[in-house]
């Protein structure tokens, strides 16, 4: 045993796969310890907030210390954020449309440009040939330019409880800064939020663990059924073998995906918990294991040590557990690994079809993907809502297949490098 393990861990493929998998597992286990937020908690009012650090505006204003920094590029940056090259060109285009000669417009001179804009922009003026969305664009642009060059601070006011009139409580100057460490409430959302307003990363970690669990349950069920049927069929043989092989052959040719769809559909959404989906996947994917185990058992059945055991009068159960199982254990482990990874893929595919586990209890990788697509994340460029999910699915299955290939090479010396 020890020797086998040593050999296994000498395979570079297995080790790479194992490391990736272990890393994923570590994150799944330890992340919730550091970030104990409930994964399905709706924190955002609005959907698909981009990744980044969110600083409470209110707390920023009332941060205990205010610092004054006189940065020379602050004003330039502030202006550039609202008035980029695109906006300057658009303003120029508008000015020309309303009849300002081109040589009077210097789109690089902010002050002159804004001055011209203020003089010439008239929201009520109909410009022939300008489409309506452009009209609205200029309205928005005009609004955003308001007060851009202001040097004055903003006054903070709050209503007096008794009279209801606004009273000044403070001023925010252009050179006021806060140290982000001193702001009371700051939340970093490394992967933003999803369509429900949930923290994608926290949800993704939970979803990964649920999907791994689905994979494990489905894999165990499939491997167990496959192992039992394969052993019976291969060792007992005869009529039983014929029947089992008949059923196995049936399920080999009928696409398991079709079966999965039909069964999941029939079960109905209200009964489709994560475990149920795992079970359905498990019960439709045992065929390969059965075939593999059976052929192994048949080749073992007539080996000398098995015959010897038979002659010594050992029971079938004893022979199977002592003389056969140890010899096929490596195959079974490999089959299990493959089953787990394909079950994770199956769950994801089912969810895309709307046949995955029910939504509200736990997230799964497939459900996250499905909801991101329902809310059109891929079209709107909200990559954080779906790409990390795809990547995690691929990394899990990749690592497991890599481990499997590594094992294959260890146990099939012909394949060794």
């Amino acid at each position, binding site marked *: 045993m020890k020797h086998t393990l040593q050999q296994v861990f000498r395979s570079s493929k297995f080790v790479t796969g194992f490391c990736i998998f272990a890393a994923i597992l570590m994150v799944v286990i330890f992340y919730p310890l550091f970030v104990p937020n409930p994964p399905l908690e709706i924190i955002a009012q609005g*959907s698909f907030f981009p990744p980044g650090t969110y600083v409470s505006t209110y707390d920023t204003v009332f941060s205990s210390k205010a610092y004054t920094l006189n940065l020379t590029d602050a004003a330039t940056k502030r202006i550039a954020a609202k008035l980029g090259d695109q906006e300057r060109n658009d303003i120029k285009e508008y000015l020309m449309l309303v009849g300002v000669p081109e040589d009077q417009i210097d789109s690089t001179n902010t002050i002159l440009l804004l001055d011209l804009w203020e003089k010439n922009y008239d929201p009520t003026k109909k410009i022939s040939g300008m*489409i309506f*969305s452009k009209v609205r664009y200029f309205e928005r642009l005009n609004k955003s330019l308001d007060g851009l060059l202001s040097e004055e601070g903003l006054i903070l006011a709050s209503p007096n409880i008794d009279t209801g009139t606004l009273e000044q409580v403070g001023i925010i100057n252009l050179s006021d800064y806060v140290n982000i460490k001193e702001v009371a409430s700051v939340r970093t959302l490394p992967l933003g939020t999803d369509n429900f307003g949930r923290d994608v990363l926290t949800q993704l970690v939970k979803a990964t663990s649920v999907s791994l669990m689905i994979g494990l349950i489905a894999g165990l069920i499939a491997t167990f059924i496959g192992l039992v049927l394969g052993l019976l069929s291969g060792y007992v043989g005869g009529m039983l073998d014929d029947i089992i092989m008949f059923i196995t052959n049936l399920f080999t040719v009928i696409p398991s995906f079709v079966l999965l769809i039909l069964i999941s559909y029939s079960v109905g*959404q*209200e009964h489709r918990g994560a475990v149920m989906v795992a079970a359905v996947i498990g019960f439709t994917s045992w065929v390969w294991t059965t075939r593999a185990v059976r052929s192994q058992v048949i080749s073992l059945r007539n080996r000398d040590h098995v015959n010897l055991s038979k002659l010594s009068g050992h029971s079938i159960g004893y022979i199977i557990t002592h003389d056969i199982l140890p010899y096929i254990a490596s195959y079974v482990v490999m089959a299990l690994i493959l089953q787990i990874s394909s079950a994770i893929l199956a769950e994801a595919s089912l969810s895309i079809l709307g046949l995955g586990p029910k939504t509200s209890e736990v997230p799964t990788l497939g459900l996250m993907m499905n909801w991101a697509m*329902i809310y*059109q994340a891929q079209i709107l460029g909200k990559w954080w809502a779906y790409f990390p999910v795809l990547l995690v699915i691929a990394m899990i299955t990749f690592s497991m297949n890599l481990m499997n290939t590594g094992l294959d090479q260890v146990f099939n010396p012909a394949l060794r490098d």
Partner: protein
Amino acid sequence: MKRLMFVLTIIVVFTLALSACATATEAPAATEAPAATEAPVATEAPAASGEAAAEVVAGDTVLPREETLYFNGQQWSAVVCWNPYSSNCNNAMAIAQQDNARTIMFETPYMYNMMDGKVYPLLADGPYAWDEGMTKITFKLNAAAKWSDGSAVTADDVAYTWASHVKYNTGTGAANILYVADIVAVDPQTVEVQAVLGDDGKSINPLLVQAYLSSNYVMQKAWTEALEARAAGDAAAFMADVAEDVVYSGPYGKFFSDDTKVVYIRNDAYWGQDASMWGKLPAPKYLAHIIYKDNAAGTTALAAGEVDVSQQFNSNVQDLWLEQGLPISTYLPEAPYGIGASLPTAFFNTASLGLDNVAVRKAIAMAVDYDTIIANAMTNQSATFTQVPRSLMNPTPGEQAAYDKAAVADLQWAGNDIDGAIALLDEAGVVDTDGDGFRDIDGKKLSYVATCPNGWSDWQAAIEVVAAAGAKIGIEITTQYPEWGVYQTVVTNSPLPAEGYDIFMMWSDGAGPTQPWGRIRKLLSGEFAGTTNNWNGNWSGFDNADANALIDAIPTMTDAAEIKAAYTELVKIYLTEVPSFTLMYRPQAFHTVNESVWTNFPHEGDGTDPAVPPLNLTDGYSVAGLYNLTLVK
């Protein structure tokens, strides 16, 4: 190696043969079908294979981009038939007989305009009039109105259409027979709609009688007779006929239809170019609706400029212009981007433990965070309850003016009022008696299932928020999403089951000629309480004598102040009894346009008079927008 290539060739050839076989064997099967199957199916099969041939009327197979207006979001699978007597043609663009009827192919006597709540003549000439005793409506038909075969639209056609609806008990017939007694032709241009009269000798429901005129198409008598001859008197055959030969009066007719699109072509002889109607033809030569698989595909096409008018929920629609800089706009420049018209509503199952207690119902409704629902589920495409306080009215100015806001102000709640909800429950004596963190009644903890159909994404997102509110006020609320097939059979059949449907979502009416009365009736009227196969409303079975009396009385009221008082009273009852609570406002139709090719779409302040409603240029008076379109220069 050679042999291998040979084998591969065989595989490829075989595959091709297989695909060829697949078509070859299926084609005859389809034509055999009529002989082999039962009667109802048999009548459909020949027509269906005719449709599969997808004949093209005119020669061109490319739809010139500058002559075609592209739609999406109305048609989600292939068109089935062209028969307005059938209510199952799945032909959304051509056939939609509703409050805001779609009139691009078939026409109604009047068009409803949700912007001002008035109707405008289409096939009719001038306004309709009730007689002195409120027993019948008389209206004239436009003398210019013609069918697509060139014959005139006459009062006989209107009368015969109604007679056929009744004779074959179509959806339209069944829905109106209790209110419309008969429709007769006085002379070729004059139609008389006789109402069913109540004990007082007046129409029992004038609102529904006059709504008939803007909701239902006029069909040609001659064509209807041809259809009857084909159906040989069988109602099922009459309604299931595919009607490829249908005669219509509208500006567009069938051009092409298959699984990926449906195209309508302008009838250049359309009668509406007469000065008495539009005075010109609508701008696009073709109206095309591509069938997209889901919202994502539709949004992609809209962004790519392959769709001009989009009637679907585009999540975060503002990103299309703010972040992607596309020439796309909605009716309003800022959230909610469209005009809310219907009220997706959560109903209470009053048979569930504790939900018969108004304090519990109101506490749940108060605790729900509506702002989150509106921001997340609807991506802000709904007015908030701060902007438009809760009532039975939709957010249109006309309906908002129909009740006295100030009179119900103290009954309002804005949502996310956890303290208020807790206080209300404590006051009502609904408290946690066993210390498990959940409130109890008679020693049993309050635990509810909130539900809506699976896959209805914005509703599911809303229900999640409702469930989250429960935990904050000590009531356990879990969620469950049955398939629509299961869901709808349960909620439409009284009594509701003891489990699984404690708080459930359904819809309400939008904007229309009978509103807000029609919506209020469907939300509150006791006539629907305890009924089975109830597709109207009031699924919580609310039955309040005061409300019932008011609902019965409003249609025959004539005094504006009296009507306003009645509506205010109904809102009071609604806010006090909380039989259901609205979760968001939803537009009558989503209306997002891309100005890559066409421009001059209806938008707020576009200067049209009367204002063209943002209903995709197809519904009700919105069809007027088709005549204003111009190409982008």
